[in-house]
């Protein structure tokens, strides 16, 4: 038991010459060894790039002339707050986030409650159906919805006309409606949140409902006083992931509007501006500034959410 770790315990005599190492020490070394892929990856692809991004934001770094990189102080940051496109993109991103968050939070709970209902026949089948769109590649989903939302022949507008809407909106061609259209497309993305919520719902102890019933609570009261508090941690988790996801919203508006963000910039999201600046115009210094700006916003929002979570998130385990 004195050798350093070797995959096969061959030649113990040769190894015994080294300094004795305790079992704990040996296990620790193996631990670092098995951990090393992530440690290396974390530094190479996460930690160093985050720092490099911050440094880039104070330079005029261009990929085409990497040697001529110059330190330009806070110029990029000043530019960001005077860039009408960036400010509009920020407004679009936040407006859209406020519009879609209620659905991103409430719809999974509604679907999970439905799937958890003892009155639903064929639960596994419904679970499959509601999760299925989540598996559809974003690219396919966008083109499918583009046809579905087509102002003339799309099924949504045919349905609306059937219900008496004389002039249903031209969803994708109208600056007021393209936001709501993308919110609608977002309902296909709730599969994961729905499943997690469902699993949590199934874990709520039956005794709590029985106790509520004894105290005279109806189904609605039980839902708000028992179910919601018990699943609040999962709602919080969905909320955090949704907020971060919305700050990065890119593929849907980019493909839907062919990279333009039109009509009238109503679908020009912050990340599209970043992509255009950094990759189409090769202004990587300014792009890194935008990336760090979003990172700061994400940190602030996460801290705020965690701070408020103490008031409304209930951890049954008492953590």
């Amino acid at each position, binding site marked *: 038991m004195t050798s350093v770790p070797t995959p096969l*315990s061959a030649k113990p005599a040769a190894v015994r010459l080294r300094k004795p190492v305790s079992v*704990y020490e040996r*296990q620790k070394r*193996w631990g*670092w*060894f*098995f*951990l090393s*892929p*992530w440690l*290396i*990856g*974390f530094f190479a692809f996460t930690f160093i*790039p985050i720092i490099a*991004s911050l440094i880039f934001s104070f330079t005029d770094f261009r*990929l085409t002339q*990497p040697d001529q990189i110059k330190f330009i102080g806070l110029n990029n940051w000043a530019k960001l707050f005077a860039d009408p496109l960036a400010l509009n993109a920020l407004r679009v991103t936040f407006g859209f986030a406020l519009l879609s968050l209620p659905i991103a939070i409430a719809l999974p709970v509604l679907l999970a409650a439905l799937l958890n209902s003892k*009155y639903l026949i*064929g639960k596994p089948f419904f679970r499959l*159906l*509601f*999760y*299925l*769109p989540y*598996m*559809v*590649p*974003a*690219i*396919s989903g966008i*083109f*499918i*919805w*583009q*046809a*579905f939302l087509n102002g*003339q022949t*799309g*099924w*949504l*507008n045919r349905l609306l*006309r059937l219900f008496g809407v004389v002039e249903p909106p031209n969803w994708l061609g109208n600056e007021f409606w393209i936001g709501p259209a993308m919110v609608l497309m977002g309902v296909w993305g709730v599969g994961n*949140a729905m*499943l*997690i919520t469902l*699993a*949590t719902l199934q874990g709520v102890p039956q005794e709590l409902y029985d106790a509520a019933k004894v105290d005279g609570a109806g189904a609605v009261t039980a839902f708000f006083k028992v179910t919601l508090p018990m699943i609040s941690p999962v709602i919080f988790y969905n909320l955090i*992931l949704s907020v*971060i996801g919305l700050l*990065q919203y890119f*593929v849907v508006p980019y493909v839907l509007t*062919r990279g333009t963000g039109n009509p009238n910039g109503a679908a020009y999201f912050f990340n599209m501006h*970043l992509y255009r600046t950094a*990759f189409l115009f090769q202004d*990587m210094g300014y792009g890194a500034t935008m*990336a760090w700006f*979003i*990172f700061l916003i*994400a940190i602030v929002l*996460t801290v705020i959410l965690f701070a408020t979570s103490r008031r409304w998130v209930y951890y049954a385990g008492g953590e």
Partner: protein
Amino acid sequence: MAAISQPRPSVVVSPYFVRQLRKFTALALVTLFGSLLAFVYLLPFGNMMTVALRDQESLAGGPDSPILPMKQLFYEYNDGQRVQRLEVFNVPIDGETRQLAALTKRRTSVVFIDPNDPTAEPITWEGNWRALQPAYVFQARWENFPEAWQMIDFPLLFRNTFAIAFIGMIGTLLSSISVAYAFSRFPIPGKNWLFIVLIGTIILPGQVTLIPTYAFFASIGWTGTWLPLIVPHFFANAYNVFLLRQFFMTLPRELDEAAMIDGASPFQILLHVIVPQSWAAIITVGLFHFVWAWNDYFGPLIYLLGKPELQPISVGVQIFNFRYAPRPELVQATSLMAMLLPVILFILAQRFFMRGVVITGVEK
């Protein structure tokens, strides 16, 4: 009086029956609501299928054109001198609807020929022809699929996507199993903090690492190759490590210890004790990665710009669909082809997927 107070069996319902009736009503209502919701939720798929099967003529139809891929019926009428192409209408005559070809259309009357019996006397129908419904037959153009398949060079896209997804899957499995093993079994100083950092990377906005990473790959000449899409997966990822670690934690340690006493090295324990017990979790991680890589769009978009021969399905379909936007039937056909594999994989292996989602989502 006694006879009157006697309960009449036909009116009085036992409490048991009331309960059953209420239960049945609830079952029916909830299931109906669920079905309706699922129907609306999945409507876009129907829209996709019907567009993918249309031909040019039925695509030209406006808001009132039939929902299904239909073809308007015409009848070639030969009156002895020339052949006329007549529109066929659904005509209500004598309480039944007949499909007749209109020879002359007027506002007050229409003269029809019966296509089944063209030599018979023409039928005159009183009324405005505009009030009549044109007759349609269902006609799906299945050739759209092979046509799109060839135009987009689907086999090439398929091979590219498969290679990127598969090699990345090997990478993420090797690295994530190793890291999860480290987190679940070894006394590493500061392990809890490291684990929090690992989980924290889940909520890191991807943009913040994007530009330096891209610049790094560009400087070593990797842009325009698959390497930036594959190599990072050999360095583990938070979701996969978390899922595998949770699974490894549930495995009894007695087996490891027994193997250790028998002189097995940590490598051998991982290979012969941990992995054979963990196939469910390993398959789950592999499937997740495969589907993720299949669907990934942003990575290939920036790293394979201008390299159509290397591009995967996601970018290939997008470029094709932009170019062929005036052919919506091809756009919908390619969209269907691109989603088929992940969706089928999911349906076949849904247990793995759903368990995996629940482990990563609930236990955190």
